[in-house]
C-alpha cells in the first residue's frame, strides 16, 4: 500500500525528516509515536501534499505510484486521507454540502457515477449511526463552533464517508477527554478492514489501548528509530523516549513483515 524510502523533507528551510523508511500493507494499522518536534505531523502533511513541505530526497510510493507527483486532490481521489490534527473551521460552507462535493469529486475522478442528495443522505445516515454522531452536525458549517471532540469525530466521520484506502490520523486523540477518545477510537476500529491501511500518529499510548496497532514505530529526529509490536507502545509509556535514545532500541527487534526502521 505505502512504501516510504529514505524520505527527507524540509519545512521553512529546516530539515525535519532525515531519511525516513516505512512500509505499510493493506489491512495493517501502524502507530507512529515520538517526542514533540520529531517530524510526526510533517510526515502526515507530506503524505497529504500540503504546500510548504519540500521533499528533498527519497520517494513515497502509494499503490506502486509516485505519490509526490500528485496534487493534494489527486491523492485524496486516489484514496489517501489525512485526519487533521487541527481541523479547519470553514464558516459558510455546510458540512453536508462540503462532504457531498468532496465525495462526488472523488467518484468522478474514479469514473464512478455521482450520488444524488437522496443516495448521499442514505450513506451519511449509515455512517452517522456507526459513529454515534447526531445529524445536527450535518446542518452546521464545517467545524465552525465545534468542540475539540466534535471536530475530531467529524474527521473520522469524513473518513467513514469517503472510505479511503490509506488513512493517516494525525494526533486524533489530542484534546479529547476519555469518553470522546473512546468514541473516536471505536469509530476508527469499525473502519479497520482488510483493504485499508491506517497510520495513527500519536504522542501517547492511551489511544493505542483502544486502537490496538499491528506495528508501533518510534519517530525521533526525522527517522524511525525503533519498531515493534503493540507492546512497544507500553514499554515507551513506562520508560519514556529517553530510554530509546540510551540504547533501549536494541531490546526491541523489528517485527517480521515490517521493513521499517531496518
Amino acid at each position, binding site marked *: 500500500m505505502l512504501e516510504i524510502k529514505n524520505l527527507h523533507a524540509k519545512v521553512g528551510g529546516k530539515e525535519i525528516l532525515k531519511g525516513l523508511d516505512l512500509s505499510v500493507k493493506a489491512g495493517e494499522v501502524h502507530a507512529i509515536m515520538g517526542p514533540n518536534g520529531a517530524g510526526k505531523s510533517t510526515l502526515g502533511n507530506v503524505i497529504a501534499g500540503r504546500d510548504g513541505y519540500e521533499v528533498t530526497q527519497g520517494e513515497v510510493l502509494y499503490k506502486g505510484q509516485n505519490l509526490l507527483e500528485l496534487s493534494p486532490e489527486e491523492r485524496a481521489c486516489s484514496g489517501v486521507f489525512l485526519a487533521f490534527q487541527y481541523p479547519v473551521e470553514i464558516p459558510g460552507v455546510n458540512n453536508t454540502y*462540503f462532504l457531498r*462535493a468532496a465525495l462526488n469529486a472523488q467518484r468522478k475522478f474514479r469514473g464512478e457515477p455521482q450520488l444524488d442528495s437522496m443516495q448521499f443522505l442514505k450513506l451519511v445516515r449509515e455512517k452517522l449511526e456507526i459513529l454515534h454522531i447526531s445529524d445536527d452536525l450535518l446542518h452546521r458549517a*464545517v467545524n465552525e463552533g465545534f468542540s475539540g471532540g466534535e471536530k475530531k469525530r467529524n474527521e473520522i466521520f469524513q473518513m467513514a464517508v469517503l472510505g479511503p484506502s490509506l488513512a493517516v490520523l494525525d494526533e486524533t486523540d489530542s484534546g479529547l477527554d476519555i469518553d470522546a477518545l473512546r468514541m473516536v477510537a471505536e469509530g476508527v476500529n469499525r473502519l479497520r478492514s482488510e483493504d485499508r491501511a491506517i497510520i495513527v500518529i500519536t504522542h501517547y499510548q492511551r489511544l493505542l489501548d483502544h486502537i490496538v496497532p499491528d506495528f508501533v514505530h518510534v519517530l525521533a529526529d526525522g527517522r524511525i528509530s525503533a519498531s515493534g509490536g503493540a507492546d512497544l507502545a507500553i514499554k515507551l509509556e513506562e520508560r519514556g523516549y529517553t530510554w530509546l535514545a540510551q540504547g533501549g532500541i536494541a531490546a526491541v527487534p523489528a517485527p517480521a513483515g515490517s521493513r521499517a526502521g531496518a
Partner: protein
Amino acid sequence: MSQASQASPASQTRDSSSLTSAWWQQLQAHQANSQPSPLDEFRHAALDALDGAGRLPGRKDEHWKYFSLQALETLQPELNLPLNALVTEQQPSLLANTQACRLALRMGARLSPAALQPACLPAGLRLLGLEEAVREEPLSVVIRELLAREQLQGAGRVFQAMNTAALGTPLDNTMVVHVAQGVDAGRLQLDWLPAQADAADATVWLENARLIIVLEPGARLQLLESFSPAESGQERPPAILNQVTQVQLSENALFDHLRVQMAGVNQHLFLTGQVYQGTGSEFRYTGFELGGGLVRNELLCRLDGSAARSDLAAAFIGKGESCVDHHVLVDHVAPACTSAQNFRGVLGDRSRGVFNGKALIRPGADGSSVRQSNANLLLSDLAEMNTKPELEIYADEVEASHGATVGQLDEAALFYLQSRGLGEDDARRILTGAFCRAIGARLADRKLVEQIEVLLDAAMPALAELGEEAA
C-alpha cells in the same frame, strides 16, 4: 424662476461633460413647458444647486476619489421616459416564489398609473404617484419633509440634484409606498428589468427613479428589490439608473429591504438611500451587488428617535472592470440606538471596490451601540479595494467596534478542501462563495437564502483565470 434655471446651454461651466449637458438641455425643455406644481420649490432648489449644467464629481472630490465617472462622461442619454403600459407583464425575476405582491418595472420606461393598482396589494398598503401623494394630507407633510432634508449642494450630490430637478416632470419616475398604522403589509417585490429588447434601438437611457416609502406607527413592510441582467447574448447600449429611495419610519415601524442586483456591465447604478427612523423603529438592509458596471450605493440612516435600530449588511462582487462603491453614514442623533454595518466584498479581475462607512454618534446620543465591519477578498493581483471605516463619537457610554480587512483566501482552508478531493478551482469557488453567503445567512427565509446562494455562485469572477494570475 431661479437664476440657475434660466442658464442656457451656452453658459455651461467649462468642465461639464456631454452627459451633464444632455441632462441639462432636457431638464430645461421641461422647465419651460411645466405647469405650476406643489413640487416646484424642490425642483428649483435642485436646479439652483446644480448651478448651470452641474459638474460630475472627479478625483478631487473627497468622496469620489476612487470612483471614476470617466466612462460616462461622453454619453448623451435620453431622459424622456416613455410611458410603459406593460409594467406588470410577467417576466422572470431573479427572486421567484417569494409570496410577494410583485411589480415589474422596465428601465427606460415610466410607471403607468394602472401599474400602481396591482390586484395583489394588501389592505393598508398603497402605491401612489408623487403628484397624487403630495395633494393628500397628512401624507404630503411627510413627503415635503423628506424632500426638504435632501442635501443637494456640491459636485458630490449632482446625481441626487438631477433626480430632484426632474420631480413632477416626465423625466421622473416616482412611486410613493404608504403603509397605514399598525398594518403588516407583508412583502412587496419590485423587479427592475433591462430596457426593452430591440436590436435597432441604440438609445442610452438615463432613468430618474424615486421611491418614497412611508411607514406609519407600528407598520411593517418587507421590500424585495431586484435588478435583472439583460438576456444573455445581447449587446445593450449603456443605461444609467439614478435612483433615490427615501424612507420615513414612524415609531416602532419595521422596514426590511432586500436588494439583489445582477445588472449587466453596461448598466450603471447610482443609488441614494435616505432612511429617517423614529423611536423604536427598525431598518434592516441586506444588499447583494452582484453585477453592474459602475455601482454607487450611498446610504444614510438617521436615528432620530430613541431605541431605533439600523442593521445594514451587503455582499458585493466586482469583476471585469467594474467598480462597486458603498458610502454609508449612520447618524446617531437620539440615545440608546443600535446600528450595525457588515459589508463583504469579493473583487476579481481588474475590478475595484470602495467602502466608506461612518457611524456618527452625536452629543446626547448616549448609550448608543455601534458595530461596523468590512471584510474583503481580492482574487486577483489587479483588483483593488479601498476601505475606510470611521467612527466619530461625541456621546457617553457608547459601545463601539469597527474593523476592516483585505486579504486572500485562507490557505489552510483551501488545503483542507483539497485534501478531501476537491480541485483547487472548486475549493476556491466554494470558499469565496462561503465568504459572501455569510451575508445571506441572516435572512430568515430559507427559500430566499437558497436562491441568493445560486446567484452568488453565478456571479463569482472566473476563478480559473484568476488562479493563473495569482500563481
